[in-house]
């Protein structure tokens, strides 16, 4: 299964980037073979709507699972609309995140876990569940 992990660098041993929308790199890993491809996150450079831009990119890679630290309201709604399952609260490296995912230690979220724009400016030290679930921006 192809799994997308938000990371700080393009490698299996890179630390997780806890932000989804403004993470540095997406590492797409085959959870069985651990073969991977990495790509720059287009959301990093977005002046606004970073989470949506990042979600658009991940959806276009045909990926159905995202592992990250936190996900904002717009990114969550976009990913959910594309049928992508989001696992949050991930820490450690890309490799350890995949292991945790495979052993069923991660919980899928059914709402955003960070407020809008939480990933701007450094983005370190965000705890889980600091944001509100914003489910009201639905499909139109």
């Amino acid at each position, binding site marked *: 299964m192809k799994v997308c992990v938000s990371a700080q660098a393009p490698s299996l041993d890179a630390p997780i980037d806890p932000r989804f929308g403004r993470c540095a790199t997406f590492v797409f890993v085959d959870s069985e073979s651990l073969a991977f491809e990495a790509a720059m996150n287009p*959301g990093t450079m977005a002046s*606004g*709507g970073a989470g949506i*831009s990042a979600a658009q990119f991940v*959806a276009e890679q045909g990926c159905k699972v995202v592992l990250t630290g936190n996900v904002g309201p717009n990114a969550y709604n976009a990913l959910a*609309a*594309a049928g992508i399952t989001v696992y949050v609260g991930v820490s450690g490296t890309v490799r350890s995140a995949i292991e945790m995912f495979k052993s069923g230690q991660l919980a899928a979220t059914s709402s955003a876990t960070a407020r809008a724009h939480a990933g701007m400016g450094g983005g370190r030290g965000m705890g889980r569940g600091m944001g509100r679930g914003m489910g009201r*921006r*639905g*499909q139109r």
Partner: protein
Amino acid sequence: MFLAVASGKGGTGKTTVAVNLALSLETQVQLLDCDADEPNVHTLLSLDVTETKPVTTMVPRFDESKCKRTKECAKFCPNNAIFVSEKGITFFPELCYGCAGCVIACPNEAIVEENRQIGVTHHGQAHGIDVVYGQLDVGEALVVPVIKAVKAAAQKDKEITILDCPPGVSCPLVESVHGSDFCLLVTEPTPFGLHDLKLAVEVIRRLGIPHGVIVNRAGIGDQEVYSYCEEEKIPILLEIPNSRDIAELFSEGIPFVTRMPEWKAKFQNLFHEIQRRLTQ
């Protein structure tokens, strides 16, 4: 003539100057309150609103049956307000600036323009002055289209249009002062007034608008505003003293020229000085 009253800093007396100047002039004046976040000209003038018009912005409406998932709209959108997956389109209206580029980008005519209200303009008269003011709806982020609507409501046949501009030095100020013949910058003689005056001068200079300074609450603070204006060769066109009488009238919502008629002549002189400078 379009005469803008701006400041940079909030609370320096822009509305006081705009309203008292309008009340002092004997020609046909209209007053536009461009501070659509927090308009207050109407409070000081006890305005009777006779008409209210909606201000709208364009939003796209998506026809999923025509959408072939080309994602051209999402690729175009500079604000990433549109998300497209195989399952459908998700639109984030609060990120949309209403540029309508997505409508053009879509090769399948799956997007049409719709209007969404973001605020209103109120129209009325007080003391023989025509007043228009904008009011942004609560929860809306885009104030500039409301300011544009206020300015578009200006009557072309009025001899003098006074614009009470919002504080700050970003888009709302630029939109408000743009196209003005002259800009009065109201400041107070304090380090805070000076700091924000300098920023406002930078903006107004870049827009190429002739300008002068009004020092309000003269007598408090220090001399730095005066030194700055002298160095930069910016004329100080009027000083309004830090007077208890003026402050008391303001606190009761009364424009001070209506109780202190000697000030009408001072505002008329101010206006004549601006006219003189513009014809030089």
